[in-house]
């Protein structure tokens, strides 16, 4: 199925992107992670009707995307995925929240509309922040950081392996599906009555593969004495990055910049 191949392509593109070098890529994974997290928390902490104060937050994605040379086309795809649920909630705000917020040249704008745009905008900001994080951080860097943060090793290794095998399983499912479609008279996907055996077959194959992987792991000493504590000290540049990507936005959250604009105009 087309969407399976596109998922594989998505993983591959992100891998290629995260393997490059830039002022952002080279930073320590801890600060990259913290920066994204703090940013998202700040964005999301604004009140429902606050839109104006959110606007300067656009600097984060714009600057970091440019510095890391991450293409904007990826953002659009991701926002499209995240949007539907937010649209539902946003539109319901338009419907249910009709106190007037302000007037522009004679047209009254309701608070609901403002919150609609606020929701859309913060969706965009959050999605972009996550994209930047994965576009500049290779998976193994991320997982080693999780280990340093004392996340149980069992879980981190599981995460790494699931990531690794998604491509393999998608390929397998895709091949099985093509074989199915070439022999079926329907043209609109799997018939529900075949789901049991199709998915079941894939599941059994996965199980068998897991057995072989387990054998391969045993042959290489698993479970062993993996006492890996891959140290990675923070550099001055890392602290600068963290400060630069969090302090301005913390200030923007605390102080109301729109009030400044009001006074100027």
């Amino acid at each position: 199925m087309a969407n399976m191949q596109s998922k594989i392509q998505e993983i591959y593109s992100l891998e290629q992107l995260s393997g490059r070098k830039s002022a952002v890529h080279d930073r320590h994974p801890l600060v990259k992670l913290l920066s994204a997290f703090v940013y998202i928390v700040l964005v999301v902490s604004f009140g429902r009707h606050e839109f104006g104060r959110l606007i300067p937050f656009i600097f984060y994605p714009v600057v970091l995307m440019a510095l890391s040379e991450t293409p904007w086309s990826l953002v659009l795809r991701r926002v499209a995925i995240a949007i539907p649920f937010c649209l539902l909630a946003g539109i319901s705000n338009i419907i249910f929240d009709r106190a007037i917020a302000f007037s522009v040249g004679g047209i009254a704008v309701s608070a609901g509309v403002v919150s609609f745009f606020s929701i859309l905008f913060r969706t965009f900001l959050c999605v972009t922040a996550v994209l930047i994080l994965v576009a500049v951080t290779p998976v193994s860097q991320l997982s080693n950081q999780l280990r340093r943060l004392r996340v149980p090793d069992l879980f981190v290794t599981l995460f790494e392996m699931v990531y690794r095998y998604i491509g393999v399983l998608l390929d397998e499912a895709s091949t099985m599906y093509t074989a199915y479609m070439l022999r079926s008279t329907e043209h609109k996907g799997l018939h529900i009555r075949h789901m049991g055996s199709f998915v079941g077959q894939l599941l059994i194959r996965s199980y068998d593969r897991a057995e072989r992987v387990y054998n391969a792991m045993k042959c290489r000493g698993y479970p062993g004495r993996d006492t890996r504590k891959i140290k990675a000290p923070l550099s001055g540049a890392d602290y600068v990055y963290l400060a630069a990507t969090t302090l301005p936005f913390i200030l923007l959250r605390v102080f109301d910049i729109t009030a400044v604009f009001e006074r100027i105009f």
Partner: protein
Amino acid sequence: MHMADALLSPAVGGAMYAASGAAIAYSAIKVKKDELSEKKLPIMAVTGAFVFAAQMINFTIPGTGSSGHIGGGILLCAMLGGFPALLSLAAVLIIQCLFFADGGLLALGCNIFNIGVLPCLLVYPLIFKPIVRKGLTYKRITIASIVSAVVGLQLGAFGVVLQTLASGITQLPFGTFAALMQPIHLAIGLVEGVITAAVVCFVYKMRPEILESAIAGTTIKSGVPVKKVVAVLAVVTVLVGGLLSWFASANPDGLEWSIEKTAGTTELESSGGIFDSAAAVQEATAILPDYNFPSAGEEGSAAGTSVAGIVGGAMTFALAGATGLLISAAKKKKNRVESKAAS
């Protein structure tokens, strides 16, 4: 039914992260105690990847012409047992969040809780296992799968409703939201249950030992007492109840405000049609009319967006755009210079 960041408040997000994190840590300990845990790791990993792939498999529902796909939570539980299934699902959800924008980063805690913790640690031990405890038969597998899937999805959907409302970003009233979410997920749950049943029966027919070891593996630890499960339930109830009452008490005005809306006395010219029917829907589904949760962070009023504000906003966007373009241009130039030097 993945939660999005934009509808979440940090408080709710953080609380759910804590709950999910605790559940994962607990499950990791449980899995490690199981003597076959080393073998479980590759199985958890590959079946986790399988669930991811299985979610891409669209099937057509005859008669409706629409297509759907399964979630896979209960299926994973049947194959692995509750605790390993939670770990696998959590890994899959994290990957979906990071690499495919399916669910936000802050909302990850919520998603792991709704889609992972509730089915694996609540529904599976309390519903699925008891039904098949007497022995595996096609009939019992089918009943267990369908009931578990339906209940699991209902709980998960309800979790989304509560978390969204507790966050207060959206103004969708509780009743309306629930009336939307629950029936849809009832239908989804039924379909998922039927398919799960078909898959598990197929596996049982072809390779019964896989299922038998999963069930056996989990019942050996009958030391996982009802006590622990009840404790989890209690924590969940307290969390949810606490959040609910906190917000409700902090905003007594919510009541009048929502009544005004329902009565339709607004200041805007309603363009008939959709607004009236929306109000009617709200009245009809106003199960808990008292429980609308205005946002806690309401200090910033929409007043920030006067005309001046709009101009300022536009200027900010323009400035940001220019900054981005400048940086990109500088980089391109640098890259060109570097590649010239290299060649």
